[in-house]
């Protein structure tokens, strides 16, 4: 009996301890899976410099970030595209530039693709890599789900509409796309250049390919030579709290530039305008 009472009171104590609440300011940042990794790093730097502020970064897609900011479930949203007209009541803070690259499995001998071939692959018109190169694998097209900015930018550039795409696999996060391509010798997908460089560096079996002859390097993105680029933005709604403003200033300042470059993005402070 005593044992039971002790256990019960211990449990109650734990629960009560849980109700005490922290005395720190908490910032919630959600959105683009492209931005989430670099934002998480910037956030931990910011926390070290500002004890008393806790920053929680979660992905979920650019549309999620924007939706969360609108309904107040997040303080700041991450969007790897520019705001649309119907979203123009929100505020956009561009902090970096990024490109989108096509990736194939590391074993695939192709190094470069042109826009027209990519269109045909995504329209389901090419069944096997053997039609283009010495690689006898069926083509597996990896596509992103709706609500992802990477998808929106890709479709706009390729002049495709989502209904005509014939995917073999639909993924959410950049990571999932990379995971899927690495796991399938015949796969092709598209992801943020920053994410691709980051993962290829870890030894994951993917290979970014050049688009229309331009190699997907951060330098090409910075110079504007690489054709498929987009802004990386933080999104807010109206007046923000003090902690949120502090964080926005931190991200926009040079203090975060090194982190941004570490993730293979181009800090807006560097980019040629």
């Amino acid at each position, binding site marked *: 009996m005593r044992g039971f009472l002790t256990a019960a009171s211990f449990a109650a104590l734990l629960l009560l301890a849980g109700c005490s609440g922290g005395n720190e300011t908490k910032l919630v940042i959600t959105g683009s899976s492209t931005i989430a990794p670099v934002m998480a790093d910037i956030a931990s730097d910011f926390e070290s410099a500002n004890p008393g502020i806790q920053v929680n970064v979660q992905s979920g897609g650019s549309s999620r970030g924007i939706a969360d900011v609108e309904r107040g479930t997040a303080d700041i949203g991450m969007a790897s595209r520019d705001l649309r007209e119907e979203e123009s009541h929100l505020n956009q803070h561009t902090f970096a530039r990024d490109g989108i690259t096509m990736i194939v499995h590391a074993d695939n001998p192709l190094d470069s693709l042109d826009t027209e071939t990519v269109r045909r692959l995504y329209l389901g018109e090419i069944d096997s890599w053997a039609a283009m190169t010495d690689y006898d694998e069926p083509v597996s097209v990896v596509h992103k789900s709706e609500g992802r900015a990477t998808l929106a930018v890709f479709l706009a550039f390729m002049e495709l509409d989502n209904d005509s795409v014939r995917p073999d696999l639909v993924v959410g996060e950049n990571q999932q796309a990379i995971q899927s391509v690495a796991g399938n010798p*015949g796969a092709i997908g598209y992801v943020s250049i920053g994410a691709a460089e980051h993962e290829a560096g870890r030894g994951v079996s993917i290979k970014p390919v050049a688009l229309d002859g331009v190699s997907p390097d951060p330098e090409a993105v910075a110079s504007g030579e690489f054709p498929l680029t987009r802004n990386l933005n933080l999104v807010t709604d109206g007046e923000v709290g003090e902690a949120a403003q502090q964080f926005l200033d931190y991200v926009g300042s040079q203090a975060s530039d090194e982190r941004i470059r570490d993730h293979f993005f181009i800090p807006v402070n560097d980019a040629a305008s």
Partner: protein
Amino acid sequence: MTDRVVRLLSGLMAICAAAVLLLIMAEMARAAWPALTRVPVSEWLLSAHWSPSGGDFGLASMLAASLLTSAGALLIAGPAGVVLGAWMHLAAPGWLRGGLRTLQGLMAGIPSVVYGLWGLITLVPLVNTVAPPGAVMLTAILVLALMILPLSVLVTDAALSQIPDQALQSARALALSRWGSFRSVLWPRARAAIVSGIVLQFGRALGETMAVLMVAGNVIRWPDSLTAPVRTITANIALEMGYASGLHLEVLYLSGLLLLVAVALMMGLIQRGAGNL
């Protein structure tokens, strides 16, 4: 005096417990209502075109995917479960029967996300060798079948245990084989309980989210082939909930309401069949 207090309190708790279902139904209906008024039934039920950004909300291909994967899983695990349950009950040595019962109880406790993880690690690459990209309807059916198999067996076992020994004695007196005695003597008596238990499993498969989310491919298309990726209603909700807003979100609630109503009807019918209504 205390009796009345305790009765009141516990009665209150009973009302709360019973009210949860009503609350869920009411809340889902409320959240889905705008979608019901703005999107015609012909679209959300019958159209296979799902493109929220374009204003198209056809759930048909996902409904079909949910129904087909669950039916497929049932087709495998249902008969297999019944036969295995009968075998365990009639033909297995005592130690094996007990061991299998324990094993099935344990299997029933394995979380669906772990089944999904296994599907991702083992089954998807395996299926990939015959049907790229591996995350296809067939894989989802196999994982679901494995998930509902243990309970199908246990349901059969339990139903057979209810039958008095006398029935089995008479079968033996007639020199029936084990299968024969099951088929002619035990099955007719146990059929109702077994079938309703198996139908319950269909409901469970229909509602499964994590395992199919991880192995089915999640492409929205009409499920016309076992070797093509599909997206179920449940996976769709999990994938799009995070960023859906406005009418899109309301239609997601609508799809959840559909699931809820389907399962409720199924369970109500089972209860009716079991003579409880």
